[in-house]
């Protein structure tokens, strides 16, 4: 199996902040809005360097989404940032009408997504956001896996015309993708080649799946690992091609099973090529306070859960 190494751990939200800052230098139409979480979203560099283009919106997310939609009229490219819970569930109708239905070029930038937000607990740990966003026509949903990929994704979505939901997180995790990668929206990234099963992972669960692959390899199991950074539109060809070969699937994500990546893959396979699927995801429950590692273990979204799911699916093959 291909080796994956890393020299440092970094949070994906810093990838967003650094990507946004680079965009600010390059593109004068890029503007940023934030609902009183500038530091948490690492938007300080942009805010300090481009104060005219940084629109502090206060603790008023509904208005922030509407104002972002309005700013697209006039050619601005707004990046509206807050925690994932407040960027989706709290403002669903604003996103639905003013952004998605109106097809506005707003980039919804959602930090602290999933259970790894940690100690703040269930009020802040949204695990329904991918489902909420992928249900909306016109919406693109992206969940990159590390600092480098989040930075590349942030820059790439500025060149794409249309609403985007960009999801990233709080904890420092290994940086293992190349710094100079080209980010292609809707294009899956194959990380390992294998023949026994395919793991489709997204976000923080990509690294966990790499760890799982190392364990599975020692057990003599050959795994194809594919990073699905774009959940919508789904790279259907990549999924179907791999599954035609391996005939068994594990999906892995830091999200509810309902509405997540696993749900998208299962739908595709049910329609095109029925295949055994096991899902590593949170099963219809709210989270709680704890460290990210404790929570990932307790709620079944870590490398151990991926290994167990792989062993289960092989028995169903």
């Amino acid at each position, binding site marked *: 199996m291909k080796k994956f190494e890393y020299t440092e751990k970094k949070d994906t939200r810093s990838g967003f902040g650094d990507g946004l800052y680079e965009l600010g230098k390059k593109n004068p139409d890029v503007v940023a809005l934030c609902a009183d979480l500038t530091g948490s979203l690492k938007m300080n560099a942009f805010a300090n360097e481009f104060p005219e*283009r940084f629109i502090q919106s*206060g603790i008023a997310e509904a*208005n922030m989404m*509407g*104002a972002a*939609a*309005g*700013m697209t009229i*006039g050619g601005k490219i707004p990046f509206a940032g807050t925690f994932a819970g407040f960027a989706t569930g709290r403002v669903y109708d604003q996103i639905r009408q003013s952004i998605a239905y109106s097809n506005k070029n707003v980039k919804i930038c959602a930090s602290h997504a999933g259970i790894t937000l940690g100690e703040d607990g269930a009020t802040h740990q949204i695990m329904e956001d991918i489902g909420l966003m992928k249900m909306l026509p016109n919406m693109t949903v992206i969940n990159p896996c590390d600092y480098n990929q989040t930075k590349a994704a942030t820059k790439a979505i500025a060149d794409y015309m249309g609403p985007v939901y960009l999801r990233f997180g709080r904890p420092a995790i290994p940086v293992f993708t190349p710094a100079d990668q080209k980010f292609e929206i809707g294009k899956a990234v194959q990380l390992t080649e294998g023949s026994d099963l395919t793991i489709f992972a997204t976000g923080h669960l990509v690294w966990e799946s790499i760890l799982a692959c190392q364990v599975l390899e020692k057990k003599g199991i050959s795994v194809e690992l594919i990073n699905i950074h774009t959940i919508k539109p789904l790279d259907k060809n990549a999924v179907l091609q791999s599954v035609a070969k391996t005939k068994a699937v594990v999906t892995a994500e830091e999200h509810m099973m309902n509405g997540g990546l696993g749900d998208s893959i299962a739908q595709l396979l049910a329609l095109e090529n029925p295949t055994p699927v096991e899902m590593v995801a949170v099963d219809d429950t709210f989270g709680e306070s704890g460290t990210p590692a404790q929570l990932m273990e307790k709620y079944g979204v870590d490398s151990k859960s991926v290994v167990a799911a792989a062993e289960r699916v092989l028995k169903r093959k």
Partner: protein
Amino acid sequence: MELDKLKATASQVRRDIVRMVHAQKSGHPGGALGCADYVTALYFEIMNHNPGNFTMDGKGEDLFFLSNGHVSALWYSVLARSGYFEPQELSTFRKINSRLQGHPTTAEHLPGIRIASGSLGQGLSVAAGAALAKKLNKDNSLVFSLHGDGEIQEGQIWEAAMFAAHHKIDNLISAIDYNGKQIDGPVDNVMSLGDLKKKWEAFGWNCFSMDGNNMEEIVSVMKDVKAETGKQKPLMIIMRTEMGMGVDFMMGTHAWHGKAPNDEQLAKALDQLDETLGDY
């Protein structure tokens, strides 16, 4: 445009509204009739805009956002009569495969519309954002928005009110259609608004009042309001109107908020409204 012509245009717009709502037996005539004078005045006298060359960005021209999207029949009529599309298309209002959806949308690419509205309370944020983009673009044109009085019960309106004042969005002229009525009855019974002028002033807006069914007053007050743009404060007009204005049996009640006239009622309504520009 001269006052007489503005009044005549508003009369035709009112005819269009009742005919459109009657034809599909659905729509919202009450508020549409009440705001007909103001929106007619905006498009035929007050705003600088380009009906023949609609662009989504609207750079260099004044923009209008209808936040109370349910009075769409009014907006469609005014857009058609001012040249955004052929008046004949008004006959497709609310019908299958039409660009004239029940509530305004960009999804059908109807010239003149820049955002969807219908779910209430969102248009002030959008207008404030569009106005802010104009400032960043060094574009000196203005942004107008219209809101229902019941609509301002939505919390997002007050978020936007704070936002516009905080960011000194002084190229934004908003108006509230203060007809005092909403679906469930008088606004004061459903959820009273208190002293509207004081509320908006407390939120940092420069506030005006006018009779929204008096064309002379509309034209004169709007001149004053435009003269107050560029002075660090957003502008709000508390506009008193009569729901159903122009059709006697639709006035003085909230019953015609979302109800279509039957054949007999249509004939009675059209008897009261001069056909000035030719029916579509």
